């Protein structure tokens, strides 16, 4: 699954650590989501959407690879 997390974070000039703190997760989690190695749970995806003020489907784009 692709996502726009890195772009949205860069627009706000946040580091991965800044975003991790705002989402109450580890920096590794943010890094793994940004690089597409890990798809977040629904609660975390909703928190990300709320934080950036965008619907989840505009941040996470399903490319049909079914990756977890």
């Amino acid at each position, binding site marked *: 699954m692709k996502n726009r997390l890195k772009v949205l974070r860069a627009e706000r000039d946040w580091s991965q650590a800044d975003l*991790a*703190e705002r989402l*109450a*997760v*580890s920096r*590794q*989690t943010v*890094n*793994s989501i940004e690089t597409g*190695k*890990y798809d*977040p*749970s629904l*609660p*975390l995806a909703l928190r990300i959407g709320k934080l950036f003020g965008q619907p989840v489907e505009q941040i996470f784009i399903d490319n049909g690879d079914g990756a977890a």
Partner: protein
Amino acid sequence: MSAKSVATPTPLLSHPLLWVGAWFVAWIGARAVLESSSGPTWARIAAALAPVPLAAVALLTIVRGARELDELEKRIQLEALAIAFVLAVLLIMTLGLMELAVTLNRDDWSYRHVWAMLPLLYFAGVVFARRRYS
């Protein structure tokens, strides 16, 4: 999802490593007592059971710590345990088959020694699982 571990450091007395370390020290002490003396049976049983309370506290702190991990770390830990479990079963199964095939020296190949390899398998699993997400 809780992410307490991200926001606040774990107090020393709640840290799993402290209690796992105490458990390990108790095991070393129990083993030293049991190998160096031949006291009454009740004392030897007491020495053999001495690590149990510390293991119980270690278990509680480990479970509590696991509940406070963030979701990716929980997945890493799950994959690590899955890897370690399969490797442990393979190790014990192979050891059992080897005992049927040849006579193994109990001092080298006893099941008393196998359990000490299980934490190593867990740490190998952690390394392998963490690499996947880094």
